[in-house]
């Protein structure tokens, strides 16, 4: 197979900003027709040789998708659902070593730095290219401990009982139009099971790459962290830029059992022609902790509100959200914390940056259900606006059904200070360097929560965003 990676014409001018913006020549081994209907859904299910219950699940979801109107809040969604490829199989089978992956796709992920990261600090890796996971590995140690880290299609075959018990229970197809769409046409994604008491020191990582044009990527991730276990899962997302739009619509369900801990980190750097409409939700049992660390830098429109439902006493939910909107981008990002049980605690910290006409919105829900006595919740959202063309909005919703609770909400909006810029430039920093430093300082309280490698990556991405507008 020919190895051909076509750099975008802009690459030379913009240099490293387009590290992620290259197209890989790849002839799909199987591709459904454009558009969505029951025939397409049946075809995907048949292709994957799925059991009847999954086909039924998909068809029911398709009906829900078709019956639900488009959301009227959030961002402007202008998607022609009949102009998208819903399933595109890039290769035959999945590699367990990178040598088993076709050269061109292997090279794609090498350029993105995944094999190197895997060698240096990851416990396991999944790489998804368009609709399928084309590479998967997990360290032997984890295998021996009974950890399952596989793609969701394989899990449906090999761990069907475990999967069926939880699949679609946290986010039912009825939840929203895009969750229904994902349920109808899902493909790929990660399935993780961590047995009781197993604590994983190094992160598991998945990398989602959309390569084809007019593509829809609908991965489906399910993570079960059993009692007393701990895991950190990281996902990265990129795509090359095309003139027409693509759609990424994932569903991620997480179950964190008693005393367990899960941290789920996303660094989303989609190309600016991608609609990123994702539903992520976790349920958290007694004394368990769920943390979403959600970094949104790319896409044309992101609508994503990771949620934690604190179901039993002592559960703790935490969401750290960073959104960066540049030219032509709208990040409608936020968080949801639902206190169902007493003595549960939650925290949301959101930092958004808008630049060059970009728009960042914080949309958050804090809900304390009847009976959730002594719940404590605190929300801090800070917005930084870099110029007069850019915009920031805050939509905080707070619903409290109990009296003896503690709820805090702080919000601030600031413009990048002329005084701060002057101070730094008067010490020899260029204006671009000074702005990048101020922005990195602004998100520092969140970035320092990331493992070092990701913190470096995040700072670098911000730097690129800041420089991008200059070119």
């Amino acid at each position, binding site marked *: 197979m020919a190895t051909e990676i076509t750099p975008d014409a802009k690459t030379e001018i913009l240099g490293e900003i387009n590290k992620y913006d290259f197209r890989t020549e790849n002839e799909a081994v199987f591709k459904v027709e454009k558009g969505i209907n029951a025939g397409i859904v049946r075809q995907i299910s048949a292709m994957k040789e799925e059991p009847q219950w999954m086909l039924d699940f998909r068809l029911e979801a398709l009906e829900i998708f078709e019956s639900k109107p488009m959301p009227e809040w959030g961002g402007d969604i202008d998607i022609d659902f009949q102009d998208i490829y819903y399933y595109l199989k890039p290769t035959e089978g999945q590699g367990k070593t990178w040598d088993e992956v076709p050269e061109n796709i292997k090279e794609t992920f090498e350029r993105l730095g995944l094999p190197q990261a895997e060698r240096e600090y990851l416990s396991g890796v999944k790489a998804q290219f368009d609709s399928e996971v084309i590479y998967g590995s997990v360290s032997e140690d984890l295998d021996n401990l009974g950890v399952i880290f596989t793609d969701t299609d394989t899990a449906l075959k090999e761990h069907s009982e475990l999967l069926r018990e939880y699949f679609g229970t946290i986010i039912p197809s009825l939840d929203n139009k895009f969750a229904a769409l994902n349920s109808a046409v899902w493909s790929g994604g990660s399935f993780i099971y961590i047995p009781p008491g197993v604590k994983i020191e190094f992160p598991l990582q998945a990398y989602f790459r959309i390569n084809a044009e007019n593509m829809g990527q609908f991965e489906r991730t399910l993570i079960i962290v059993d009692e007393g276990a701990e895991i950190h899962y990281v996902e990265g997302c990129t795509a090359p830029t095309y003139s027409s739009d693509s759609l990424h619509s994932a569903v991620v369900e997480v179950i964190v059992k008693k005393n367990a801990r899960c941290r789920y980190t996303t660094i989303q750097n989609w190309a600016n022609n991608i609609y990123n409409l994702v539903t992520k939700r976790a349920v958290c049992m007694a004394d368990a902790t769920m943390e979403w660390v959600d970094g949104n830098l790319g896409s044309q429109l992101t609508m994503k509100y990771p949620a934690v439902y604190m179901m039993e006493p002592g559960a703790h939910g935490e969401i750290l959200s960073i959104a960066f909107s540049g030219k032509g981008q709208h990040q409608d990002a936020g968080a949801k914390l639902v206190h169902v049980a007493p003595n549960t605690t939650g925290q949301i910290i959101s930092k958004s940056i808008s630049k060059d006409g970009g728009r960042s919105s914080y949309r958050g829900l804090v809900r304390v259900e009847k009976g959730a006595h002594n719940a404590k919740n605190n929300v801090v959202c800070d917005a930084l606006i870099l110029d007069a063309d850019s915009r920031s909005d805050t939509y905080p919703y707070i619903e409290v059904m109990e009296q003896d609770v503690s709820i805090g909400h702080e919000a601030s909006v600031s413009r990048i200070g002329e005084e701060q810029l*002057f*101070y730094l430039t008067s010490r020899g920093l*260029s204006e671009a360097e000074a702005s990048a430093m101020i922005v990195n300082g*602004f998100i520092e309280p969140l970035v320092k929560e990331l493992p070092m490698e990701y913190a470096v990556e995040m700072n670098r991405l911000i730097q690129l965003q800041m420089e991008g507008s200059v070119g």
Partner: protein
Amino acid sequence: MLVEGETHALMGPNGSGKSTLGMAIMGHPKYEVTSGTIMLDDQDILAMSPDERARAGLFMAFQRPVAIPGVKMADFLRHSTTNVRNPDRKEGEDLIPMKEFRKELKYNMDKLEMDMQFARRYVNDGFSGGEMKRAEILQLAMLQPTFAILDETDSGLDADAVRLASESIAEIGRAKMGLLIITHHDKLLVHNPPKFTHVMLGGRIVETGGIELAEELHESGYERIRAAYPDAEAQNEAMSSSEVTS
């Protein structure tokens, strides 16, 4: 007007335009220089941005430096030291080596009796008045400018801190740096005796003298000056304009 190696004092009552003059020289965007030129060596710096001025060897220690949350002193200083020493450096090019930088930073911090922990704090964020001034002097020491404007670098400090600040500045600036010291006190000037003293009133330099002028003003205040220049005094009272003549 200011020659390398010379120290000048700039004095004047509150609101007379001393800080404004400093800001205009440093290139603050809020101030527009409507007439006159500012030369550094043979270069007219008026067309330069503040970072170009800094790279050309100009420095100002601010009276009330602004806080930059999340930005560590050490990171900031490493960037600025690199740029000032290597004026042609483009963004993204190498910074001065960490080891070399840390050694130099430690040397200067020790001299200023600052704990190395300080380098990890965010720039001016939650600093006490004294810490702020010390951080400004630290930057002066690291950047080694040709000309430095010190805007009340001794105010808000206790006696010991003023002594330390004065001695440090004298040592840093010894013989090579041109200093323009804006001050109300005389401590700084005892350690850094000015060759010339300029008095500002109503946005103008109304009188220039030697060290004895600074001593006189320190002892007797500005009554004589106010009486001698009624126009400037009236202007001083009315001053809300941000124009500066230099």
